[in-house]
């Protein structure tokens, strides 16, 4: 089940933030549609690689938008916020991977000059099998990834516009279908340029505001280091009995920080939807400079995110810890909510409220097994210790991403571990913050910081821009793999230009339908697989592309066996460690538990080891088998030189 259950709005109908949000989302969507219409294309070169006439700076902004997904925008600062120092794995993993891509792959793949990554693997390893395997991997990675983006779209729609989740996903799908289907890569590129500016503004404005508020320094990057905020947060965390924020290796061991960072780096460099962006520029030189622009654009968000993560953690604790319960609302199904005032009530009246809450909890337990029983939602209305009403906390409880409980019935929410009498009068120890989803950190910052409603609306539009831009890039990869690498190549090699573009459009629509279905009904494995997609990409794609450029000796036998070993090893290990989540109908516990991990390496970091195996196997097998044919050696030598024939070859 999807974790969100959208309910009727509890707060006043004429919420100004919602009006602003509709206005911003409507405006940006209209803009994307307009650009899609302006850049509609008729031939394959425009459809897959935007006619290769995109200027470096525009391609840089488009790459940055393509690169920064809903996860970068919505989830990453939250992840860092809850990981402290070890959150650096995401920061360095995703930006450091970019260095590898820019120095080791992008210029050469641009020189190679075809449309897709499977094109390169097929040609370099003179094998249709390798091409098909690569196309399948590209489709698999991109599909799971795009389902994650659709989920992001759903979160934004259901939280800010209170639209049903499925409708939000359908609207998002419709918009992407329009500008990607009509304009292909050309449409996607120019929309992504606009989307970059929407998402970066949406990220910076609240970050600057919260930085000024907490550190008196408007620049988050400098407030982060030159104010005493980190020391204040460490102190607060120690008081709550948690680890210091800035101390390393609290969440992961040192070995795992290394392995996860490396898996994310090498995996990012091998992601097909990012590589393919470098096919759209004029020549090799432009590919290098568009990499420079892209990493500058990316760094703006990636250096702000850790600051925002730290500020938000501090602010959240300051607001929620020791907050006062003013009112509790119980609502069952479509019935009118029951409202219990809490503050200024006598002790016996308060106990009666808790009794009703307890009853509702018991009903909810029964509802989990018996679909005939209606669930009751329990919403706590809170005010912060300094007396501000925490409306954002109320609204997030409605989405199911935040859950608080006054366990010890003292009328306050306590973030320390507390002892209380639970069911059957047994003493239990828990925090009264029962659940907090990492996605709340970024999306609630403007409200937590008390910013005007239009900023909240801007953040919603920014989250959508991040999700839609990445989804579009991924859909193009799916479309090109299906249409160009598989259909046109094997089924109808003599198709006309018009037919090729038509097949591409049909493939995009197919991809959107599948992604949309997964967005509305995510199977349990999607969330898991997205997190591991990088490890799989690192263990399969990276070594083969890298060696294909930097060695003339590796051959088909080496590459195919290397890819298989890397992929199978990594996949098997991940499945063994997460069997209960990936195959829930077969297992209820992981087959390998944490203390049985190979050298203690977590499944998130295992791609690093898989990649090493891939390198070794590819190399050894290549050395034991005959070298590749002369025309392949000539091809490798050609892509190493930037000059001569830069345009995409026609097939």
């Amino acid at each position, binding site marked *: 089940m999807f974790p969100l259950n959208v309910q009727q709005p509890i707060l006043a109908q004429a919420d100004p933030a919602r009006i602003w949000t509709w206005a911003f989302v409507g405006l940006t969507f209209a803009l994307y549609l307009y650009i899609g219409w302006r850049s509609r294309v008729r031939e394959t070169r425009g459809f897959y690689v935007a006619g290769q006439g995109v200027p470096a700076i525009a391609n840089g902004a488009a790459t940055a938008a393509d690169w920064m997904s809903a996860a970068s925008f919505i989830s990453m600062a939250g992840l*860092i916020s809850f990981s402290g*120092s070890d*959150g*650096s794995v995401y*920061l*360095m993993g995703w*930006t*450091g991977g*970019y*260095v*590898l891509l*820019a*120095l*080791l792959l992008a*210029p050469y793949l641009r020189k190679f000059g075809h449309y897709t990554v499977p094109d390169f693997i097929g040609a370099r390893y003179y094998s249709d099998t390798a091409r098909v395997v690569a196309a399948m991997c590209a489709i698999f990675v991109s599909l799971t990834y795009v389902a994650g983006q659709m989920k992001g779209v759903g979160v934004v729609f259901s939280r800010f516009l209170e639209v049903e989740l499925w409708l939000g996903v359908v609207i998002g799908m419709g918009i992407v279908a329009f500008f990607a289907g009509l304009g292909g890569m050309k449409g996607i590129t120019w929309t992504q340029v606009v989307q970059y500016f929407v998402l970066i503004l949406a990220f910076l404005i609240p970050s600057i505001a919260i930085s000024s508020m907490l550190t008196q320094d408007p620049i988050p*990057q400098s407030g*982060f*280091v*030159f*104010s*005493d*905020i*980190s*020391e204040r947060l460490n102190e607060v965390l120690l008081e709550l009995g948690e680890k210091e924020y*800035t101390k*390393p290796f609290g969440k992961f061991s*040192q070995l795992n*920080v*290394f392995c996860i*960072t*490396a898996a994310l*780096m090498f995996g990012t460099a091998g992601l097909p939807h990012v590589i393919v962006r470098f096919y759209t520029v004029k*020549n*090799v*030189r432009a590919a*290098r*400079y568009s*990499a*420079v622009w892209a*990493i*500058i654009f990316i*760094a703006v968000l*990636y*250096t702000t995110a*850790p600051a925002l993560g730290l500020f938000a953690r501090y602010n959240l604790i300051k607001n929620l810890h020791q907050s006062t319960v003013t009112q509790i609302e119980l609502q069952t199904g479509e019935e009118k909510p029951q409202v219990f005032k809490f503050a200024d009530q006598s002790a016996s009246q308060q106990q009666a409220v808790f009794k009703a809450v307890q009853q509702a909890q018991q009903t909810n337990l029964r509802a989990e097994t018996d679909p005939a029983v209606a669930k009751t939602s329990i919403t706590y209305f809170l005010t912060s210790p300094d007396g501000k009403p925490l409306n954002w906390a109320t609204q997030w409880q409605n989405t199911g991403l935040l859950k608080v409980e006054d366990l010890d019935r003292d009328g306050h929410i306590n973030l320390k571990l507390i002892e209380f009498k639970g069911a059957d009068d047994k003493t239990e120890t828990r925090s009264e913050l029962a659940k907090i989803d990492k996605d709340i950190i970024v999306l609630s910052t403007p409200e937590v910081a008390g910013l005007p409603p239009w900023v909240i609306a801007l953040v919603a539009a920014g989250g959508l821009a991040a999700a839609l831009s990445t989804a579009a890039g991924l859909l193009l990869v799916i479309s090109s793999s299906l249409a160009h690498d598989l259909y046109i190549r094997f089924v109808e090699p003599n198709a006309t230009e018009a037919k090729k573009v038509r097949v591409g459009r049909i493939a995009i629509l197919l991809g959107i339908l599948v992604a949309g279905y997964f967005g509305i009904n995510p199977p349990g494995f999607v969330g898991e697989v997205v997190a591991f997609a990088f490890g799989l990409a690192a263990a399969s794609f990276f070594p083969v592309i890298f060696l294909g450029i930097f060695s003339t000796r590796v051959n088909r036998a080496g590459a195919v066996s290397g890819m298989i070993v890397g992929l199978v090893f990594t996949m098997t290990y991940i499945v063994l460690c997460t069997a209960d989540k990936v195959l829930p109908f077969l297992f209820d516990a992981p087959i390998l538990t944490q203390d049985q991990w190979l050298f203690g390496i977590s499944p998130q970091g295992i791609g690093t080891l898989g990649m090493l195996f891939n390198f070794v196997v590819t190399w050894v097998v290549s050395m034991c088998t005959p070298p590749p044919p002369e025309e392949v050696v000539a091809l490798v*030598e050609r892509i*190493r*030189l*930037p*000059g*001569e024939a*830069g345009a995409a070859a026609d097939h």
Partner: protein
Amino acid sequence: MTDSSKKQYWRANLKVVVILLSIWFLVGFGLSIFFIESMNLISIGHLGLGFWMAQQGSIYIFVVLVLIYALVMDRLDRKYKVSD
């Protein structure tokens, strides 16, 4: 362009990449992971240098590495006249 100058160009290219990636490794893995605890003994502002490197400094250095690569390769392209 002769075969030997092609080889020279490729060697020069490799040298640039190896130097830049050594810095990438030293900053990303060395200072920010392997030696983060000793780096944290030095402070920058109110933070440990290791923590700051892992969450800020390394990213700035990555940007500079990609920029230097583009500039140096431009010069190499001109020297060997391989640009298009």
